[in-house]
């Protein structure tokens, strides 16, 4: 009798915990999916108004996000340089063109909610920082700048594409 009542209670506890867990997981499914993929949460993502500078990001982080395909790498240099040589998987968006494009066209090139890493020819080149600012003004919320750019990437021996290779 006593044993049965204990078994019953244990079963009830298991049932309550399971149901609560399922409801909780279902209720927060988008948040959990984002957390599982390692996306920054909404709070971290919402850049305060007026802060229009993209965040610098280091080589190792760029490599990790590149390999995990978490971020879109955007090449800020002109199209000829891009054709010659670029980080494998990057897309071309020369700064001058980005300045002329309307937001809708930018959104066609880069999906609105993507995480973006801009780069150009290394520390001496400001285009990637300027492109980052253009993209933030266009409404992109996670914009990072890989200041080491193509030279640092190439020197590290990471994958590169283009006809110059």
């Amino acid at each position, binding site marked *: 009798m006593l044993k049965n009542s204990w078994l019953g209670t244990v079963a009830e506890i298991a049932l*309550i915990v399971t149901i609560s*867990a399922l409801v909780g*997981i279902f*209720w927060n499914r988008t948040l959990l999916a984002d*957390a599982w993929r390692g996306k920054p*949460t909404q709070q971290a993502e919402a850049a305060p108004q007026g802060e229009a500078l993209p965040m610098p990001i280091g080589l190792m982080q760029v490599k990790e996000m590149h390999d995990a395909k978490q971020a879109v790498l955007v090449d800020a240099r002109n199209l000829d340089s891009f054709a010659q040589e670029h980080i494998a998987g990057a897309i071309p968006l020369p700064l001058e063109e980005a300045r002329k494009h309307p937001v809708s066209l930018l959104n066609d090139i880069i999906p609105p909610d993507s995480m973006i890493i801009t780069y150009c020819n290394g520390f001496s080149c400001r285009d990637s920082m300027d492109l980052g600012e253009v993209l933030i003004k266009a409404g992109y919320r996670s914009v990072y700048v890989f200041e080491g750019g193509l030279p640092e990437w190439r020197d590290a021996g990471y994958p590169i594409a283009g006809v110059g290779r």
Partner: protein
Amino acid sequence: MAGRRVSDRGGGKMNRLRPYLPAAVRVSLGAIFIYAALPKIADPVAFAGSVASYQILPYFWSYLAAAVLPFLELTCGLLLIRGYRVKAGALIIAALNVAFMAALVSAIVRGLDIDCGCFQQGGSETSPWVALARDTVFLAMTGMVLWFEARRKRPPASISPPFTPPSSVPSK
């Protein structure tokens, strides 16, 4: 009115309130846990931040805990208030309380200066010591609920007033 007369005969104010004590403790405890659950359900990201600040769970697990715990608190709170499956609900609440207290103690031991994240998220900071004292009270209340529940369910012979002989029952 009739109830009052009976209780007056029985003694002072405490005796009059005594029958309501188990229900009062049970409903209060349930209400506290529902009150704790709602802000966390409303803002799971903030609660996940509170969980993460304890630096106990890895990244994703903080979010999972933040997603599941408030609903567990809510369910148990509702069960206690409703008086349904009280033992199971109270045991879960006891386990949660012990887990919260362990987390708080570990935060104190490691010298983490964090908000407890027990109720309102991101409000004024509650020190781990205050939170620990509060959890002790909740744990005691849970103990009372379980004790009342066990007493209520015990076979009548052991706790109820002396068995009424059948002769005193009015015959049809």
